[in-house]
């Protein structure tokens, strides 16, 4: 793989890629399910164990890739083209109640970007993409009823709905100026960030749905950076679980009653409010028609003016989630046992589909600060 990456890196320099760059898809399992099983990828090909935590996967046309097992994560490193593999991976993770793709929301990607700027002082080249999909703003009645309506479109060329997308490549210092300007304009939904490789040339592109492409000349550097980010992601998820299940009191019995009733609520606050038509369309599509990208199910129970309660399930991992929805504020209560990544997923989807102008808090703590705190592990390693 290392040799393969070196060859692709030379081709990238020559702007003539003969074969696809290596890409890794990260799949997460929910806490308490135990070690994730590589069988989740069984539909992609024949899986054979090569080492304690590494498996090869091949189909009749040739190798599909290598699966790496890492506590709560499975990582598929593949050399196939995006068009050959991405949809198949996403379908597999979506069809299982035990697995989901990794969700890197805008705050996490912004943190990676800020660290890159700080560490490399603006000299190294990088790339970012910001995407906002006015999904609920533009949805017609026809769309809602259509069998073709999907919840996961990525490539512009095949899109059937509008996407506001900005993609910029430049030195980190200049990019940082652009990013600040875009943030001032409330354009904040980062969908991809290229993190410069700490030990070699090139970089590693992190996409919000858990894909990481290697644009450096070694596989080892790619794995190191990915693992650092996963360390931060896991620390963040577990911190959120501690706060939302136990109210931040680690000394209490984890199965205790306090866990059930005193955990911190997660609040998504929209300072300017979600526009009425967008809010109504979101409620209609997600909860009445039970469709669309959020994959939440549950009945809307009126709880005041424009305010609803939902005692529902997040169908990504089949987990219970209690919601209070209003145009100004969403409150999310994670009952004991519901995975903390529910917060990352909601954050990523709200930033992408509903509003970019939001503040997220977990109890009394700002989500952004929690991201910083948890990802210090990763940034220390890459420093």
């Amino acid at each position: 793989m290392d040799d393969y990456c070196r060859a692709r890196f030379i081709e990238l320099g020559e702007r003539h890629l003969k074969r696809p760059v290596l890409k890794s898809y990260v799949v997460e399992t929910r806490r308490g399910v135990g070690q994730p099983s590589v069988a989740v990828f069984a539909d992609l090909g024949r899986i054979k164990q090569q080492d304690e935590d590494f498996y090869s996967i091949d189909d009749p046309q040739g190798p599909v890739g290598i699966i790496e097992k890492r506590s709560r994560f499975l990582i598929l490193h593949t050399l196939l083209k995006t068009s050959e593999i991405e949809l198949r991976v996403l379908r597999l993770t979506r069809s299982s109640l035990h697995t989901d793709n990794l969700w890197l929301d805008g705050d996490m990607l912004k943190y990676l970007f800020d660290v890159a700027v700080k560490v490399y002082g603006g000299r190294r080249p990088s790339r970012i993409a910001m995407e906002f999909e006015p999904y609920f703003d533009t949805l017609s009645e026809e769309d809602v009823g259509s069998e073709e309506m999907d919840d996961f479109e990525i490539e512009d060329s095949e899109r059937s709905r509008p996407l506001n997308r900005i993609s910029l490549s430049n030195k980190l210092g200049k990019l940082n100026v652009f990013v600040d300007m875009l943030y001032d304009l409330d354009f904040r939904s980062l969908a991809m960030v290229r993190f410069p490789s700490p030990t070699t040339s090139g970089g590693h592109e992190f996409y919000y749905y858990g894909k990481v492409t290697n644009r450096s000349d070694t596989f080892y550097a790619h794995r190191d950076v990915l693992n650092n980010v996963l360390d931060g992601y896991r620390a963040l998820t577990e911190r959120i679980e501690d706060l939302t299940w136990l109210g931040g009191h680690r000394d209490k019995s984890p199965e205790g009653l306090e866990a059930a009733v005193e955990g911190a609520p997660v609040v998504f606050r929209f300072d300017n409010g979600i526009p009425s038509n967008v809010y109504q369309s979101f409620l209609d599509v997600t909860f009445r028609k039970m469709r669309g990208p959020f994959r939440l199910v549950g009945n809307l129970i009126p709880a005041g003016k424009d305010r609803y309660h939902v005692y529902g399930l997040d169908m990504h991992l089949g987990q219970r989630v209690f919601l209070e929805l209003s145009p100004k504020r969403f409150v999310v209560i994670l009952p004991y046992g519901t995975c903390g990544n529910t917060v990352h997923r909601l954050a990523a989807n709200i930033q992408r589909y509903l509003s970019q102008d939001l503040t997220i808090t977990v109890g009394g703590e700002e989500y952004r600060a929690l991201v910083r705190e948890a990802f210090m592990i990763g940034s220390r390693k890459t420093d």
Partner: protein
Amino acid sequence: MVLERPINQLNLMLALAREWPVDDEIRPLFREWGYSVRAVGRKFALPISVYAALKDSVPMKIAAGPDLILVSETKGELLELECKTQSFGMKAVVMGAADTDELRQARTLLLLDPASLAGSLGLHKVKSGSLVYVIATESVPLQEITLEELSSELRDHGQAPVKHWVWGLKNKEDGVYLWNVNLGEEEIRVVATTDPDWEPIRTIPFDPSIDAKDEKGVLIFSELVRQSVAVRVLEIGVGQGVLDPVAVCRAVIPIWDFWDPECTKPVLARAKEYIDSILAQVSKMGLRSMREKGRYLIEIPSDRVHASLTRYFASPRYWRGDIDVHMPQDGPPMFEEPTAP
């Protein structure tokens, strides 16, 4: 709305014990005061000597518990909160009854010693406490008189009843207020809202022991049971597995283990009845189930059956509560797979 239902009052009190962002519409009053939740719906027995001495002369219960116990370990104090729609003194006055269920419960609560109650929760530093009734503001004066009368009745029998307070809940134009509070300002806005229909989200979705006529609670309970059955059956996959109705109830009601059997029995029966009707529907698709020792043994014999079950459980109609498999479905199943990256 909040003031009307004890289940809403309880959930509002629970919300005041959670940590909210600094400028949120909910003021985490109990946290500010240094109190945290240590028990919900638990019952405590009176000392047997007290019960034996009084039971023939004073109508009371052998055990009772407030809806909620809040504790401040630094102050060494606890608050026993009991939520009520209205003063039960009125009922006693009108009906001339001295032994309504609520009066018997109130006497028992007044006799529970805060220190021993804290001791049974493992909080040995807590030595004092108060009983607090939370009630609609207009009922506060009558409730205070009622509690004072009950206390003096107990004192006449040589007992030392616990301190008591009555907090009023009221809606004003700019929010929900707690009134007559002994621990701080007299009137405290706990929810900033101009919406007269504001309701708290329910951490405890349903509790027939405090709110027997709670239709919304029944609806939420049914929905949560329906979800649990769908997820459990889909988790089993092709093969055999167990569906335990007690586990379903425990997942749905966070305080299940603290409820009395008199409370759990009818709810468990209701859950089983509902699970039976869902399983009867899915048996038409080939799922096999058998009751054994109060649990259901489930068998999904083939991929084909599993695929049918997945379609059924993924239909909007099922989630809305129409569980009949022969009902016409309205549109394609939800969350179709991604079609084009």
